[in-house]
């Protein structure tokens, strides 16, 4: 397995990331983690350990890092003040940056970019809303403005669909 001794430093560059250095592997985070409880392929303590040991390649290519429910319980209970959940979000951002993003999350990103909404307006709901005496479409964001903002932070590249491995280019 490839080991990257620089990975810990790389992760420690942000205020969030540098808290990882205080981890003493007690496992309190795993004890309260709902994702770990139902699927042992996901273990926040182990993820922290793997980061500290420099298993960059393994982590960024591991689908299991996406099993987190984002509940932040780990962050609340860590006796060492490690911002576990937030730091694991950053781990996922590194995976996304090399094209490893679950399809449902990517599609959500595409909807947000294309319509300015995660759940776009649709005619059936608009009719139901009108019948209920509600405004036909409640949210009508200026998509151009939102796209300009998202382009500025490089969002389109992150939600591009990469060609399937082994497929014809």
């Amino acid at each position, binding site marked *: 397995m490839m080991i990257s001794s620089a990975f810990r430093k790389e992760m420690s560059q942000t205020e969030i990331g540098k808290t990882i250095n205080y981890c003493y592997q007690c496992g309190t985070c795993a004890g309260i983690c*709902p994702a770990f*409880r139902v699927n042992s392929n996901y273990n926040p303590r182990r993820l922290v350990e793997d980061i500290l040991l420099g298993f960059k390649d393994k982590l960024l290519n591991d689908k299991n890092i996406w099993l987190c429910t984002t509940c*932040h319980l780990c962050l609340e209970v860590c006796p060492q003040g490690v911002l576990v959940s937030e730091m694991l979000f950053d781990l996922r951002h590194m995976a996304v940056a090399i094209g490893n993003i679950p399809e449902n999350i990517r599609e959500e990103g595409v909807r947000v970019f294309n319509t300015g909404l*995660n759940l776009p307006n649709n005619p059936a709901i608009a009719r139901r809303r009108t019948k209920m005496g*509600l405004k036909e479409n409640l949210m009508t964001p200026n998509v151009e403005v939102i796209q300009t*903002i998202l382009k500025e932070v490089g969002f389109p590249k992150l939600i591009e669909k990469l060609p399937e491995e082994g497929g014809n280019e």
Partner: protein
Amino acid sequence: MSEYALFVGCVIANRYPHLEKSGRMVLENLRIKFKDIPEFGCCPNPTGTLQISREAWTAAAAHNLCLAEDKGLDILTFCNGCYETLKSANVEMKNDPHHKDVVNKILSKVNMEFKGSINVVHFLEYVYKIITPEKLKETVVKPLTGLRVATFYGCHYGRPSSIVDFDDPIRPVSLDRVVEALGATSVEYLNKHTCCGSAISGIDEDSQLILLKDKLEQIDRVKADLICVICPACYMQLDGNQRKVNSKFGTNYKIPVLYLTELIALAQGIPPAELGLNFHAVKMKELIEKF
């Protein structure tokens, strides 16, 4: 501030408008003044966009905050996801001038500027802190006496506690006090703090449904008449997917799930027929007959 910008969020607006209906009626009953801002966009979702890019999440949230700042209005929201997003972006930029500058540089491309002049409030927070359970009680005309309610807060209401600091992050009490003010009994159950599973629905359906089954099992065990939620994503999972749990595990759960404003509306004497309760996946005929 005496008037609010209402941030309904896309899940309620474009999937569960009946929740919006009860929400608006209750806001009026409680004499909370509010305006809609049609230009509001995706909050964006902490379980979606935040998992792709922190910068995109913050900048898009800041865009919404600026729209409310322009009108001089605090934001009031019905959705935990919108709450965590908007509140985090707001607090983080207010506390860190450097962070604020970075975001404002992005916003300058669309001629916007985050100033840090407003607050973000969840509907439950408003009822608990500003109205207070005592005053809420005075608006009740049909007390929910005898109803056993299992409250469920979801994950994005009280955490991270560095951002949201008015209730306990693991054992919050605000919703229980509010439900009791309506005359109901709030029942304790095991693993109340645990996620309903909604966030991983598109990632791992097995894990998602096991989490939901666990929750239903604990709530069923204490013989709750209904579950009261404060987040449309929890509502989607607990109400919409009970059937999936039943068919996967051979169970027979039929526990009604009500969003907080629906429960308040019933206690305030709004006729059930006006609330669109028929749009719930778990039917609640027996429950409605009590009103």
